């Protein structure tokens, strides 16, 4: 029995096909989010790569920012519950999940069965999210995917005091024009992101194991800075960007068996 989980985020569309609620058959990520061709493309990619038909899917659950506009799903479930579900599948002893997505940050507290018991999200401001790093990468003329690696070379990170994206950008420009090394600026940016996210996560409660997911979890610099800020080891699953879609596929399976 196959189920599909789709996660249409603000900057990327993700999908997972699951067999019998246990085996991950196929995954796909398209770097275009809701409102673009991303949602259709990710679905097609999943079906092509898994060699399955849409009619083979017993149930589809959609999550993410674009969940309400997608037709043809059995259910729409919030990305909060889906991330909790997906992470618990990959890391059964997870306690706290930190998800940094394109335009929001979530800190989730899970009970021992992997159910969401409480959560905190960022306020309306998108400082500290993936979009914040995109803007900084732009100013630094660097690919966002390279930020983590470059920051690891830093010996003396700068202090970025502004949390606002616009003000932080102008701080970065001042550092650049003062001739500060890019790696030190990037490391400073990561520390500033980590400070903001750690404060949010502490509000919901830090419980072992701490797992980080979402696109930003691929940035080793942010993960290390988060470990320093929390004083805890952080586990990043291989499928960090796919845990929402995975959770959705698991919910789809559960819905069939209820």
């Amino acid at each position, binding site marked *: 029995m196959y189920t599909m989980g789709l996660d249409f985020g603000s900057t990327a569309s993700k999908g997972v096909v699951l067999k019998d609620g246990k085996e991950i058959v196929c995954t796909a990520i398209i770097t275009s989010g809701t409102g673009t061709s991303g949602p259709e493309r990710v679905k097609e990619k999943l079906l092509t790569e898994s060699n399955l038909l849409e009619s083979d899917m017993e149930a589809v659950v959609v999550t993410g920012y674009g969940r*309400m506009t997608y037709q043809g799903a059995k259910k729409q479930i919030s*990305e*909060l519950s889906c991330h909790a579900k997906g992470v618990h599948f990959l890391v059964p002893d997870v306690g706290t999940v930190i998800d940094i997505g394109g335009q929001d940050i979530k800190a989730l507290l899970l009970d021992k*069965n992997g159910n*969401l*018991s409480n*959560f905190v*999200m960022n*306020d309306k401001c998108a400082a500290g999210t993936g979009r914040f790093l995109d803007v900084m990468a732009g100013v630094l003329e660097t690919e966002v995917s390279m930020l983590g690696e470059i920051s690891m070379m830093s010996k003396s990170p700068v202090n970025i005091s502004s949390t606002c994206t616009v003000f932080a950008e102008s701080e970065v420009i001042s550092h650049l024009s003062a001739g500060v090394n890019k790696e030190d600026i990037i490391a400073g940016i990561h520390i500033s992101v980590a400070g903001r996210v750690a404060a949010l996560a502490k509000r919901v409660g830090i419980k072992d194991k701490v797992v980080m997911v979402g696109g930003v979890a691929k940035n080793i610099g942010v993960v290390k800075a988060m470990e320093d800020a929390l004083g805890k080891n952080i586990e990043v699953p291989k499928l960090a960007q796919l845990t929402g879609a995975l959770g959705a596929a698991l919910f789809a399976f559960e819905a069939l068996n209820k």
Partner: protein
Amino acid sequence: MAEENKITAMKMINGLLAKSYKEAWEAKEKGIPVGWSTSVFPQEIVECFGLPLLYPENQAAGVAAKKESLSLQEKAESRGYSIDLCAYARTNFGLLENGGSENLNMPKPDFVCCCNNICNEVIKWYESLARELNIPLIMIDAAYNNSGEVSQSRIDYFVEQFKEAANQLEKISGKKFDPKKLEEVMAISSENGKLWKESMSLSKDVYPAPMNGFDLFSYMAVIVCYRGKKETTEAFKLLISELKEHIKNGTTSNRCEEKYRIMMEGIPCWPYIGYKMKSFGKYGVNMTGSVYPHAWALVYEKNDLDGLARAYCSMFNNVDLNKMTDYRVNALKDGNCEGVFYHMNRSCKLMSFIQYQMAREVHEKTGLPYASFDGDQADPRAFSDAQFETRLQGLVEVMEHQKENGGKADDNN
């Protein structure tokens, strides 16, 4: 009588609200002084001089719900009023700047009445109005209660200012203060406070609740704007009889199925009130607890000025963190609530910034899940519907799981 012509509490209350504005316009034409007042000012003293009062907070909420507030706020901002100021204040300054409002107009005031038991920014707001329009300001300073109960010295301080307000109003109205009239107004106002409190308590232990809690925000208008009037007594008596009838029949005026009962913290986002009600309906959520409408459940005994002072000083914004937490814990119990949804209201710093710690303490005492969303009472720029819905859905999913699990998380975290 045909069903559509039946007088309902909602129709009666909407009629009274319209009447309060109409009376102020008529008074203005006759040359009777009209006042503007903060929402929890002791209006009893003004009412006993027979002077009409209008409430800029009510007007701002009304025009925000009609999507007019932003254009007025921009008028105020272009004069230099900071965007960080309360959106009710900006809407009000914008109203003056604009020379009126399309949707809900108020005549210019001849005097203003300010009590800071709800907020401290109102002092500067009303000082500014008084200075700009060159009119008298009646200011009642309610000392902040940082130690639980309202002390006698704070009550004495309030009562003396109340008496001074009478002196000011004698000059404004050209009439002598009449203690008998005050007694009458106090009796009506307190009766209305009691009836309002009763109407809000009727959802306790009743399933489904006899009304959609959001309706309180409509009913509330008269306890704010027409608190000292006999007509309000009649309207609330009718409301209570309607609710009791629903309870007797096991029915409700709520058009959505009630699957979850929550407490909403804070002032509603008036520009999105329809969207919010629709979202609540979609997830089967009813608001059976809220501290906000309780602000006007001002109860005291007849002729008891100290009691009146105590009631006005005990406003939920004028008390310390412990008391604020107690008010929420009680509202959650009284509404049989399963979760809390906090409005991080950018306008109201007083109610919002304390929320982080208050939410933690309420959670520790009740174990109930909670979420919060960003918004503003009257500035539509501070709200995002997608963010609102995700947080609401997340809260519903946690409540759903806890319900399946007998009301608790799977472990004690």
